[in-house]
């Protein structure tokens, strides 16, 4: 049973153009770099504005925090969280376990344990529930069966990425700064692709993400069987227009429409094709059409 769609949004401009009727929960921020200009993490006023608008609609706002935080990163986020809580922030997406203790200062906050927490099975998920986690976002390197095992065993909601660009790694160094041999000029705003023969990844500086759009549209019937599950659009790099289109398609399929009718449209939106990640236990960059499923 799906609880609704969630979406990741990195800045106010994108947020402002989203169709607010499509989403139950908004993840505001950007996990991959604290130097990202115009990101909610560097623009507290925009963040507060978005939180207020979300609250007025009776929906949920979460602040996305980075993986592998340095000691100073906590100081940087402290004031931001403080102000966001005052404006009605509902929760925080945690990607570094150090945040679990840190955010106890704000007991009203709910906690989503993000992809980088590396939850691979239900016993681990339950451990994080002991630390106050209320939504489990399992690691993406999991199959349908493994995702179902987790959601079936936990009290929390689960949240599964159904579309977008999956994280393939997070680095200390910025690959784009190195390639341009310059200080940060926000080159990550442009699409940079790492190519080796037929294998592609998108570089966004300190992280690589899938170049192909991860897509589970053809698997919506299976996803509906996962208990208390939000469907997440992980679309930090995409325009509001694309996010709205994708969300509409998933919403329609959530309500019983045939996925196959929308597949071509999604393919048209994806510059580098589609992939299934690890959903079928296969190589992440493959796309397995529903007719060719492998036994996971």
């Amino acid at each position, binding site marked *: 049973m799906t609880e609704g769609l969630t979406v990741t949004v990195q800045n106010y401009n994108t947020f402002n153009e989203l169709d607010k009727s499509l989403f139950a929960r908004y993840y505001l921020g950007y996990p991959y770099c604290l130097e990202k200009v115009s990101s909610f993490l560097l623009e507290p006023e925009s963040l507060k504005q978005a939180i207020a608008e979300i609250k007025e609609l009776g929906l949920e706002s979460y602040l996305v925090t980075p993986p592998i935080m340095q000691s100073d990163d906590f100081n940087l986020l402290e004031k931001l969280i403080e102000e966001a809580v005052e404006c009605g922030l509902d929760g925080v997406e945690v990607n570094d376990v150090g945040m679990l203790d840190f955010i106890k200062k704000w007991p009203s906050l709910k906690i989503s344990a993000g992809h980088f927490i590396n939850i691979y*099975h239900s016993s681990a998920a339950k451990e994080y529930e002991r630390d106050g986690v209320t939504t489990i976002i399992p690691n993406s390197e999991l199959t349908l069966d493994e995702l179902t095992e987790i959601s079936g065993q936990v009290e929390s909601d689960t949240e599964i990425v159904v579309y977008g660009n999956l994280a393939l790694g997070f680095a200390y160094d910025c690959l784009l700064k190195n390639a341009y041999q310059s200080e940060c000029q926000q080159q990550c705003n442009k699409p940079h692709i790492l190519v080796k023969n037929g294998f592609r990844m998108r570089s966004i500086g300190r992280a690589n993400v899938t170049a192909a759009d991860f897509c589970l549209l053809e698997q919506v019937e299976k996803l509906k069987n996962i208990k208390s599950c939000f469907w997440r659009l992980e679309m930090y790099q995409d325009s509001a227009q694309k996010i709205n289109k994708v969300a509409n398609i998933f919403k329609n399929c959530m309500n019983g429409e045939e996925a196959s009718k929308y597949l071509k449209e999604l393919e048209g939106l994806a510059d580098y094709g589609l992939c299934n990640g690890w959903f079928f236990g296969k190589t992440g960059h493959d796309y397995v059409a529903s007719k060719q499923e492998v036994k996971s």
Partner: protein
Amino acid sequence: MLDVELLAPAGSFKAAQYAIEEGADALYLGLSGVSMRPRRAEFDKEELDKTIKLIHSKGKKAYVVANIFPKSYDVDFFKDALEDIYRMEADAIVVSDIWSLRYVKDNFKNIEAHVSIQASVSSDKTAAFYERNGADVIVVSRSMPNLEDIKRIRKAVSCRLEVFAHGGICFMYDGNCYMSSHFEQKIKFDKERNIHRVYGQNNTKGECHLVCKRPFELRENGSTLAKGCLMRRNDQVGLRDLPLYIESGINIFKLEGRAMADNYVKRAVKLYRQAIDTYLNDSAGYTVAEKWLSQAEDLKEYRLEYERKWKIK
């Protein structure tokens, strides 16, 4: 007396013998299927037991690595492995996440739990979280270049701290890289365990395809911006920074190499034993001998040999 320990890799019984002969204080080694390394660099139960006994008979310590992130079908297998390691009287179990850490602390007495390099601990608060949950040793991230950050971690915790002193560095933070399984991953039938499962190649298992060591082309809007091994980072050589690490509160100096040749272990341990002893005997007079740097350079050849086994082009 400073609490400084040289921690050597042991991917084989021979490597363990070499490491002991050359002066390692402790050895880390893995049990088959749970230690983030290819099977050839892990031990089966009988070999592990024999090797731990050898290590103890020479007065050294044995840290057994169980730092995969188990999947649901691995959990019982993983718990059995922890039980086996405990029964073999290892000095420590090295784990990667909070579930494994708490499992070790809740179920086993008189054995240390070390938080693995896979946890990429980079901040005082993250280290404090693990210590509060029972960590006896925390390995700080090998991507952490800043001694100030290490000092802040030192201030935040009282447990021992370990640093990656020598070896290759991945582009991505450890425990947060999914490039390998995106590149290639297979599910096969495991006769031993009677299950279909993923064979290595992902963040959870340790048979990495070394994607970050491979040449790539970086394109922007169809034009080539750069070509080559864009994600390859320089090897860590900790000889120069050894005094700074010790003075920042690092206790354990780990050398990479469970999957490397036995001779690599012999030479690497010998080199770092010499450096640590030089510092301990005369910290103010510590200098890095030219011949040490050339020996460290020679060790790189073993890494390249390892990479060639993966046919990286």
